[in-house]
């Protein structure tokens, strides 16, 4: 499971995830950009969608900011906010899971790592979700799996487009097989939406790994990623241990994913909203009718 690799990496290589998330910092604070080491004024960072004006480093964003970045102002209405983890395995090895969840809930104010709801993007009705890396590494347990599944079901029922901003360390191991099965569950819901001819656009942000990448994240009709986002199945440290040599520059970066044919493009944060709106304009034009064919894209 790559979450840990991820943290390891961060320590070792000064990776570009910052522990302080922009959305949670007051405007009057100065911070150092991990991309160019320049000192930035948080007010400026916030005004530029949390992108460094000097080196284009994309800072981590919290889920609500992710959604706000994409939807028409005031259009978002959250659903399923009352879902919380039940610690079904009473997982207490090393650090009790219940405690991790409680701490995450307190520090983030979220009920779990996924925030989902209804909104419009340029007037197009969407079922939108975003994952928040601050919450147990945005790993997918029963709650995230259920919320993502319900989001796809909502899209199907109300003939909305599905849009998800994905970040995740992978499956939430503290819920064991219940977590692994969420991969199949979310994939099944995504497949149902696809068979109904409704569009799904995913946006992969830094970092997206493990069982989340290998399920709903990449089953979208169109996949975009933010610049520099790292996306993969196995975490970089595990890959390095496996092949016993150092990884090539840019390995698992959004830019290399384009080269390897895995995603449709790298999109600057400031341009995401326009790009997604344009895509939905194409794929939701016939939302009212039934599709000519259940394509296998």
């Amino acid at each position: 499971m790559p979450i840990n690799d991820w943290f390891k990496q961060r320590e070792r290589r000064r990776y570009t995830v910052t522990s302080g998330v922009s959305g949670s910092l007051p405007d009057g604070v100065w911070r150092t950009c991990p991309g160019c080491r320049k000192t930035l004024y948080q007010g400026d960072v916030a005004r530029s969608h949390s992108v460094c004006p000097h080196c284009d480093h994309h800072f981590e964003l919290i889920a609500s900011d992710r959604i706000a970045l994409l939807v028409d102002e005031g259009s978002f209405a959250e659903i399923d906010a009352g879902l919380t983890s039940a610690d079904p395995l009473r997982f207490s090895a090393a650090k009790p899971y219940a405690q991790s969840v409680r701490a995450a809930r307190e520090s983030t104010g979220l009920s779990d790592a996924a925030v989902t709801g209804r909104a419009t993007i340029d007037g197009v009705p969407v079922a939108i979700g975003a994952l928040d890396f601050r919450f147990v590494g945005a790993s997918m347990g029963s709650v995230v799996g259920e919320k993502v599944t319900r989001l796809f079901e909502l899209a199907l029922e109300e003939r909305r487009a599905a849009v998800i901003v994905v970040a995740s360390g992978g499956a939430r191991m503290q819920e064991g097989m219940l977590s692994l099965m969420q991969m199949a569950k979310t994939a099944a819901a995504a497949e149902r939406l696809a068979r109904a001819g409704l569009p799904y656009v995913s946006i992969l942000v830094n970092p997206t790994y493990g069982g989340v990448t290998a399920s709903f994240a990449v089953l979208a009709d169109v996949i975009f990623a933010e610049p520099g986002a790292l996306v993969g199945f196995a975490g970089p440290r595990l890959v390095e241990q496996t092949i016993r040599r150092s990884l090539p520059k840019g390995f698992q970066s959004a830019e290399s994913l384009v080269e390897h044919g895995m995603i449709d493009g790298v999109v600057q944060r400031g341009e995401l909203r326009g790009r997604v709106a344009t895509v939905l304009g194409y794929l939701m034009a016939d939302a009212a009718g039934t599709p000519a064919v259940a394509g296998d894209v």
Partner: protein
Amino acid sequence: MARFVMEFERPLVELEEKLAELKALDVASLPDLAAEIEDLEREVERLRDTLYAALSPWERVQVSRHPERPKTDDYLSALFTDVVELKGDRAYGDDEAIMAALATLDGRRVVVIGHRKGRTTKENVRRNFGSPHPEGFRKARRAMLLAAKFGLPVVTLLDTAGAYPGLEDEERGQAWAIAECLATLSDLPVPVVVVGIGEGGSGGALAIGFGDRLIMLENAYYSVISPEMCAMILYKDTARAAESASALALTADDLVRLGIADEIVPEPPGGAHRDPAPVIAAVGSRISAALDVLSGTDSARLQHERYERLRAIGVFDESAG
């Protein structure tokens, strides 16, 4: 070939070896020997009972990885006839870590898909020790679609430590290949029966690892993460895998309790490798029994029930948002 000894069996094996030594001595020349042998035999018996009576999760993981444990190839040759292998993803390669075939079980035509560990080192190298590359999953998906097209039920056999975490595997879209298997399998219009015969390592197992029925062998495991990696994350120490194995709820029993697996095929004391034939036969009849039930169901209903089955998995609290 010397018998492969699992860590937890060592005390028993040492006692058994001592017993064998005594038995090799000349009974006539040593008057107390017969009694001593009898004592030791009782002790071996007692230890064997306690050792194998209730294996711990970590012990079961070791049994599931036993090199002599019956593998996909053994099930294939013992249970299936008229086997025609389907090879390749029609795009990049043929991954020997996953096999797909047209095959006949008790007169019923099916498509079999299974992880394939090797029996020899040479075989294991060719098969990457049963850890699939993306093209393995893409071949599996091709076989699933073929099954759908021709109305053949799908039987899958799980036995992998996991999808291979190699550099090229990442570059060729390991996550994409797995996700597409999941999507396809979730909506396949034919019965899908899954059997956990050995290791069930995370996403690489899940890609062919869910359907209308999940049958687990008593000592097979199925886990979101390997006990070693979990221990590494929790304790920075792979030696504490036993604790992780217990915490992860990865045994057949756990899976039934969690509502993920349907039934368990018992194994002889010590594991299926001690006496494979009856275990393999039992698996065959369980698959047939499951297919007997499922074959009566039309495809729309199968798809609906499979979805509902997945839909029900997950434990959470819900309050008014």
